């Protein structure tokens, strides 16, 4: 099948890509949203003093 990739998704914070598969008629057979990012906030906040966490987590999204 023909695959169209939109990479990156633009005009947003963060990363995303979309894969669209077209059948022989040119109709959309399926589309997939993928997130190509891993930063690990869920893990690296562990062990930090609790009063520091509100200074770390805003860096998830700066918008």
């Amino acid at each position, binding site marked *: 099948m023909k695959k169209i990739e939109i990479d990156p998704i633009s005009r947003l914070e963060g990363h995303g890509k979309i894969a669209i598969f077209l059948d022989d008629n040119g109709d959309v057979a399926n589309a*997939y949203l993928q997130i190509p990012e891993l930063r690990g906030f869920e893990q690296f906040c562990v062990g930090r003093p609790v009063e520091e966490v509100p200074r770390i987590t805003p860096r998830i999204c700066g918008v």
Partner: protein
Amino acid sequence: MPEKFKFAFMPSASCGGCEIAIVDIDEVILKVAELADIVYWPTALDFKDKDLEAIPDGGVTVGFFNGAVRNDHDVHHAHLMRRKSQVLVAFGACAQMGGIPSLGNFWTTEEIAHRMYDTVPSVVNPDGTRPQTTFEVPEGELTLPRAMERAYALDQVVDVDYYIPGCPPQPKWVIAAVEAVASGELPPKGTVIAGTKAVCDECPRERSEEKQVTAFKRIHLVENDPEKCLLEQGIICCGPATRDGCEAACIVAGQACRGCFGPTDNVNDMGAKLASAIASIVVADTQAEADRILGQLDDPAGYFYRFGLAKSLLGVQRGERKEGDE
């Protein structure tokens, strides 16, 4: 009519705050628009990788790269930006020294993924599904970048010309950088476009000649004197080892500095510098007493390398870690 410059903005493992910092220059953005064409900025406009790839090498006058280098796609982007840009700027703390995402270097990527996809209380993933770099679906194949074994700062991957520090960078330094480009008077390669002293020099609080700390305190558990230096009151502040230019914004807001502008000049390892600065203000008669006071810090590496873990000279070591150590 003089030819316009070409600017490119590449996000990486970032939060978008650096790109908001560009927008925060307010009406000066009009000057930028006069000065330059933006040839790549997917966060703000509809650009794709192929648009940047189509530009001849060196065709971008100044490339601004923000975010840490965390997956192999980020590495590709770093090399791409370096090839396409005459001048490459590491924009923001993540690009300068790894930033907050580089705190992930305390763990292996597998440990991080295990937490994210298996053990975090808010996740429901009974089959243990994980992202894959390639995956077959009925219609064809999907691909994803590979998260690397560690996070990197930009200059650990490609040659960098300038740094605009901060988390986020401040409009006045973004403007200073734009003006330097406009005037053609660029500072020496490798310059960090910010102040040249330490945050203490801009800090409005009073400092006495000698600091003598006999106990460390957590800022939310004590009433601190708003006129007096935080460190003197036993509250960890990274000001002494941090480059200034931010007008001590965090301290003015009642919080301690956490070092987001990176180290002052001539510092090879910011964490080591901070450890030294903090240890030097402790007053104790015996080694045991000194150990006891310093032992009050539960997370020294997290304080000393908050924004710059990727640049520690120790490198990323995965030695024996016992349960409970982070």
